[in-house]
């Protein structure tokens, strides 16, 4: 009983989830074992293949953090241009944002009061 989190709509019990996860893992293991026998360590099969070209060293091969998600950032370039511009890093702007939030929430609070 106490192992269950009730959300008023549904419940969440990680123990059940873990059991289901274990069952799936067993099935996956069976699939995996079928292919395991053909794999031979130490042969060419285990080497990197790059269209027959010479494989570059580790420094060149590594995908750097700055290159990851290049496509995502490039597609959403307009959004990011807009969103990065306010992040100026100037301490004065931080104060401006604070005052803006105070002002906007005060206006919302009073406008709703007047209307309703």
């Amino acid at each position: 009983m106490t192992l269950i989190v009730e959300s008023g709509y549904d419940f969440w019990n990680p123990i059940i989830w873990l059991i289901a996860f274990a069952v799936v893992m067993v099935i996956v293991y069976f699939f995996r074992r079928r292919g395991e026998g053909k794999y031979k360590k130490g042969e060419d099969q285990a080497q990197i293949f790059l269209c027959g070209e010479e494989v570059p060293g580790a420094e060149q091969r590594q995908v750097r953090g700055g290159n990851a998600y290049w496509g995502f950032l490039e597609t959403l370039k307009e959004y990011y241009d807009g969103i990065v511009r306010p992040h100026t890093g100037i301490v004065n702007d931080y104060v401006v944002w604070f005052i803006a939030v105070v002002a906007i929430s005060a206006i919302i609070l009073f406008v709703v009061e007047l209307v309703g």
Partner: protein
Amino acid sequence: MATLIGHSSILIIAVPLLIAFLTPLIGMASKKARNAVVIVSLAFVAFLVFALARDVILNGIHIYTLGATFPGLTIPEGTMVPVRIILEVDGVSVFMGIIVAIVSLVAVIYSLSAMKGETGQNRFYTLLLLMVGGTFGMVFTGDLFNLFVFLEITSISGAALIAFRTRFADSQEGGFKYIVVSAIASLMILFAIGLLYAQYNLLNIGALAAAIQYTMLDRIALVILISAFVMKLGGVPMHMWLSDTYSVAPVSITVLLIAASQASMYALMRICFTLYGVTLDLAVVGWIIIAIGILSMFIGVTMAVRQTDITRLIAYNCVCEAGFMLVGLGVGLAVLGDVTALRTYGTAAISGAIFHVINHALFEGLLFLVAGAIFYRIGTRDLNQMGGLGHTMKFTAMFFLLGALASSGIPPFNGFASKILIYESVYQFNPILTIIGIFVSIITLAVFVKAFFSAFTGASLPKYEDIKEVPKSMIAAMTILAVIIIIFGLFPGLVVDWIVRPATDALVGQTSYINAIVGVIP
């Protein structure tokens, strides 16, 4: 033992302060003795917090009046109102106290080896203990002005700690931004406290809550208080200081800064639920908080995607997680007046938000500690410089993966347990909020996949081939957090029943908080 628990609420605040001023004296004699004293005292404080938590959850609200003839004397004879500084510890307070206790212990254990090479360690531990004492004070006090004082203690010592490594220019800038933002926020809070004091001549939260009328001045005070505390906890659009400070502080301090931010979150809850309660314009204020929360989630996570500095990436993720809490809290606040809605999903939303507070402190703390471990070994935070670290830093990589999965809400870790509470309850309030939340969670996973793959996987780079695993005390600190994350993930029901539910009841039940101070109103 009963006496100890009776005095424990003040001891939890006073022992760190006492040890803080003792450390320079001990540190002049012996470094080892100083470290031992700091750790033992914080362990003692953690023990007291747990004992107090048990007592509060079993026996109800705990009152401590400083300087009175006995602790429960809130209103002395001949006065009509509470006059002394009163500590009032209820379910939410001990909940936050547990977070601070765990986090401070972890931070000190981590600092033992992380700060070994630094100069002026005596001052470091003094400031650290001051900050811990201040954070405890923020969550235990029942007095608005006292809240301000402890907030300032936390801010000042926090800023000094952020800028502690004077050789880095970034750290100085981070400390400067933190103290400027904190000073403005706290002064505006003091102004709002003045507005409240002008009308009711009261500073005690419970007594003030009994008297509050929600006049025009109260509204102005409410807006200022909410905005200032949201700024202190890093809600969009006032989150920009957060990435600048979290990323440059020594990581053990960043973990404490997270706890301090959560203490601001606690103050926000206190203001909204206990101080104003049902008198305020619930739907409007609730929606303002929800809007800030949604913005925080969305902007936080999208900014995190493009970061190449690992600590900045995690800091933006902190903004995103704070958004989840704000959404849960806002939904709970919006339906506070509606009894049926509150019972069907309102309390679940608040529980989810509160549960997420402790989960947030745990997994973001773990992620920051891992980032600090990387910085400790390779001397850079730039993801473009990293790669293949998982070959040599196996434990660190495991811990990062654990924190990342918990943070993105992957079952069976603790982040999922609290996020599902928020999703399902918020869905009944407004389905769009849940859809945004799930979307944000997916991008969070993407963010951490990027960080994990560019830092830990890949062929081991020649320049990092002789990198070793970090020292034992850092591993130990990370292990503590990791173990708690796994336990919370496997048994979320127990955690919710033992500490989260009492905290939710304490937040929703405003009258019991008031009655503990002013007595039962006939």
